[in-house]
């Protein structure tokens, strides 16, 4: 019994409170029982009194802090620190802005500047913490490379924790990334910024604010809840409709199934093996594993947020949608509107728009270009990569200044490219994440230009690219060019078919003298959509080659491992395939293959159909819903792998 209590209350790195663990649900059942006690004891009306709401917020904050302690131990102090600092700073911003509104012109100016300085301080503290924990190794490497030093990271917090000693309970020579720090720091930045821009009132009560920052369902892996979306909910009474309850239960089951059946099972039984040793597997196996990895990342991350949304909803809180069937996207822009939506929205509001958005380039635009060029220099050690990035920035600046008609288009693309690169770096300070972000940015820009081209130009461009790649493959002949050749040939074939279809449509329109090309029929429209979806999915899957980072703390090693994995996979996929292995592979890995196909089919089901079955589940009698939950959990349990699989996005 003492062991069980110790397991429940003490921090143990091997036993974090994961949504997929029995301990989490036991914890949640107890938490919810006390939650109900706070809100429901007494009359119905009193459940929604202000005092009870306040008590509910304090209680949920305490629970959230306990949850974070169980997940991250002593790092709870960082959470506490940013909660306090940003709460205090927001108060100061609020005060300055109030003074601005009520005073003379001179005071207004001073107050505006003061508020701005407070905001800057908040951003510096928050990004400083992020830089310390996430980018310390990277900066150390950078200085070592630049000045020929042999510095090693030194964890000042561990040093202080040991009573100003290098030996003791904490290791000073490693800096461990606190779970979820990238998420909650972005959340507090959104708060001070929203207060500064008047989008939300500063929170008077520290405990209420603490609750917003640490609300446990979304604390460690999002969705990143913006202050203006969540803080008003702190002051609203509990209300959960019958249908909403059913939907919450559905999201939880849906998330568990995604995480355990699609993500963990595929990972353990195929994906991890291939990514660990790509050379042990044939080209087809590598390609299949790469597509399966695309599915895994989605199922893992969206599974987590489905559960988070469901759990929060049971407590009467609404978290924003984080995924909207992203692999249904028909182009990379759409993908980023449907994938990790809370991060995309955050980056748009707090980075893209301040950079000038689609209208202008600001000091920030050039600052980031120069910084990214420097980072590229450090990561690659190659002046060529740096020169390419700097040249892009310079070209855009010159064209922007000299050709005003293209200015907006160029600035918009430059800003979105910077956002994608920084989005990549948010995942980790490594070359592979930068490539990943850069490829996504490039994909978005190319697609934007493609869409405004006429069909003749598209066809000419496609033929030119295909010929270029064919020539490169013939001349250089490495597997990566074989891969590109096959890919572009498929794209070219698709483009030719679409081009011919377009020409025929034009001819028919001309003959019928209507002049306008008729709308595509249902079948051709569906084919066109399927083609666009398949292309986008393939492109996003290709970028995933660079998304899987090594777990090594040292970015130099992590980079090397990640880079080798990517090149070895390309080597296998782009090399000649041993086709005799395909059928035996499908048979040996039949469950993995079936699950992957099933996962994709469910993903691609029409939204209306998904809403229909979700609603039917939500409206079923409660006794039947209990039975469904039990049956679903028993089924899901059959897929549980022996090892605990942490959520992929915990590492970011």
């Amino acid at each position, binding site marked *: 019994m003492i062991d069980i209590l110790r397991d429940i209350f003490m921090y143990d790195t091997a036993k974090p409170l994961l949504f997929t663990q029995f301990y989490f649900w036991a914890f949640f059942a107890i938490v919810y029982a006390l939650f109900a006690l706070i809100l*429901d004891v007494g009359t119905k009306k009193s459940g929604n009194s202000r005092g009870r709401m306040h008590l509910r917020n304090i209680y949920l904050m305490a629970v959230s802090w306990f949850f974070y302690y169980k997940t991250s131990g002593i790092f709870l102090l960082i959470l506490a620190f940013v909660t306090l600092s940003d709460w205090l700073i927001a108060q100061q911003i609020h005060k300055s802005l109030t003074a601005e509104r009520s005073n003379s012109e001179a005071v207004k100016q001073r107050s505006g500047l003061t508020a701005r300085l407070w905001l800057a301080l908040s951003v510096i503290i928050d990004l400083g913490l992020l830089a310390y924990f996430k980018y310390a190794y990277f900066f150390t490497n950078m200085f070592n490379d630049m000045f020929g030093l042999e510095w090693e990271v030194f964890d000042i917090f561990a040093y202080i924790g040991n009573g100003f000693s290098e030996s003791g309970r904490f290791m000073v020579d490693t800096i461990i990334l606190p779970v979820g720090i990238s998420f909650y720091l972005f959340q507090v930045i959104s708060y001070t910024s929203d207060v500064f821009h008047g989008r939300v009132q500063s929170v008077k009560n520290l405990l209420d604010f603490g609750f917003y920052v640490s609300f446990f369902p979304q604390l460690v892996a999002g969705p990143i809840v913006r202050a203006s979306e969540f803080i008003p909910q702190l002051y609203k009474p509990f209300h959960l409709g019958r249908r909403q309850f059913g939907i919450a239960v559905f999201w939880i089951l849906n998330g568990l199934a995604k995480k355990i059946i699609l993500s963990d099972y595929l990972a353990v039984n195929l994906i991890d093996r291939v990514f660990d040793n790509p050379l042990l597997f044939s080209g087809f196996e590598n390609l299949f594993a790469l597509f399966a990895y695309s599915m895994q990342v989605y199922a893992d991350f969206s599974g987590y947020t489905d559960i988070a949304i469901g759990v929060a909803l049971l407590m009467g809180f609404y978290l924003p949608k984080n995924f909207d069937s992203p692999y249904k996207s028909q182009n990379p822009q759409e993908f980023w509107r449907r994938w990790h939506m809370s991060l995309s929205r955050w980056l748009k509001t707090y980075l893209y728009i301040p950079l000038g958005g689609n209208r202008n380039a600001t000091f920030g635009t050039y600052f980031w270009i120069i910084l990214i060029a420097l980072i590229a220099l450090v990561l690659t050690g190659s002046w060529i990569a740096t020169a390419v990035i700097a040249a892009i920035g310079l070209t855009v600046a010159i064209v922007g200044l000299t050709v005003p008609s293209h200015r907006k288009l160029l600035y918009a693309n430059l800003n979105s490219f910077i956002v994608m690169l920084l989005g990549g770096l948010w995942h980790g300070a490594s070359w592979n994440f930068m490539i990943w972000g850069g490829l996504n940015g490039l994909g978005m820009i190319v697609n934007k230009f493609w869409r405004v081209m006429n069909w003749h130009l598209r066809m000419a461009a496609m033929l030119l690219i295909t010929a270029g790649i064919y020539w490169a493959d013939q001349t250089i002949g490495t597997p990566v060019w074989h891969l590109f050749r096959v890919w572009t040939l498929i794209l070219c074939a698709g483009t030719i078919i679409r081009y011919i279809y377009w020409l025929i449509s034009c001819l028919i329109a001309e003959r019928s003298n209507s002049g306008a090309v008729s709308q595509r029929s249902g079948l051709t429209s569906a084919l066109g959509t399927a083609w666009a979806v398949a292309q986008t999915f393939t492109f996003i899957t290709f970028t995933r080659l660079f998304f899987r980072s090594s777990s090594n703390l040292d970015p130099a090693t992590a980079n090397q491992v990640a880079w080798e994995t990517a090149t070895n996979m390309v080597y296998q996929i782009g090399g000649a395939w041993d086709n005799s292995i395909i059928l035996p592979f499908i048979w040996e890995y039949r469950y993995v293959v079936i699950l992957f196909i099933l996962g994709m089919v469910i993903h691609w089901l029409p939204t209306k159909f998904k809403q229909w079955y979700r609603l039917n589940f939500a409206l079923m009698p*409660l006794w039947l819903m209990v039975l469904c939950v039990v049956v679903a959990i028993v089924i899901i349990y059959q897929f549980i792998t022996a090892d605990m699989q942490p959520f992929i996005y915990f590492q970011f």
Partner: protein
Amino acid sequence: MREMRPRHIVLFIASCLILLGAICAVAEYEKSWLGPLRWPSLSSMLSTQPKQPAQPELANDLDLEADIEPEELVPFTVSDTLTLLAEVEETESLPEPAEAEMPSESAEEMSPTPVVKPDTLPEVKPATGVLEAFIAGLADAGSKQVRVVHYGDSQIEEDRITATIRRNLQAKYGGGGVGILPLYQTIPTRTIRQTLLINGKPATSKTAPKRYIVYGPKNQQREDDIYGPMGQVAVMDTSLRAGSDSLVLHIEPNGKRSSSTYFSQVRLFKSDNIEVNARSADILTLPDSTNTCTLEFIGQGDVYGVSLETPKGIIMDNIPMRGGSGNVFTRMNADQLRTFFRETNTRLIILQFGGNVMPWADSPERVRGYANSMRRQIRHLRACAPNASILFVGPSDMTTVIDGERSSYPMLPVMDRQLAQMAASEGIAYWSLYQAMGGWNSMMAWGEKGLAASDGVHFSQGGADKAGNLLWKWLETQINKRK
């Protein structure tokens, strides 16, 4: 009900938990009611200790005549299966010599669900002086070549483990080069990057000369047994027209340069009618020590390998046989092997196999069957290389899933001890990688430190370096002991 109050939700959660708990109780007291379904029992849910399958007793009633049934193979990869199937078809059982008998134990004495610590397994007394030929040969390393040939399964691919031993041996006794390489490399190594150009374009497995592999599936095997020392041969046939088609092999270091990437001569294992750089000699002496070279092949015939080496010191070959279990040497031409070992002054042959049979070797009989088949291979190799010591490196620890829990393959300790016994009785050296790693479930422990791949079978690069160092330390101790 239009609204759900928290108390309703508490009731809902409680109902779910009670029903799930009831299933736990069923699993505790009458598991058969659940049929094939897996479900935790109440006691395991409340237990704070992770459940681990028991380590089995070493079985001693091994059946020497165990037949190998290919249809029961459980592969790591599909290509492993194909390879293993090909090997297994050729496997024959041998009567076991009397001295190889393990201490026997009656069936009644064996517990049906035993938990045995490794130290309770019967000890094997290793044969003495088994590395004598190798250690004595090291004395000549200052004046001539001393060759070490490392054959193994996928565990040594990419020059893993071999590279560490080679680096240490060459640092201590001199020598350079990475030893033998195939004409067309299908699996890149971490040490050397080689590109085969056909008419100026990099070869693919379709355009490269036809490859025959002794450990490959039937369609990749040749009709005769002339495979060369690597067990694979590239055949330059009539599809390459001498004079008009050019076949160029370019070799350079992959990543960091080290003593192993520098070499000063290239030894060619090929048919006489093939010329390399316009010469038909078997050894091309380079003007100076280098880490790159370009070789142009002309003619028709077999290419068994290209060895990068120095005229003296240690030369160590890395010869991985993917999916193989080592049962192929008897299918390689004995005269050819004999010539190779003699002419290259091979003083040590390392055989690192056993991992690929673990999914199949699920009974003591099968373990003994495998050890027995390896005995035959060792005898064959010893006959081909009478001046060389033979070192058998047993399988690493390997993880599998039993009843939903990860653990070592139950028969691994048995396999390790059985192979040690076989090695002792054959008078060859044995090094237990399994024991050196830490024994039972050590691959899981290595995995936690980032030293193992997630398949629980292979090492990560760091793990391979560590395993290589462990083997080197052992080898160094053996060498020092003799001194």
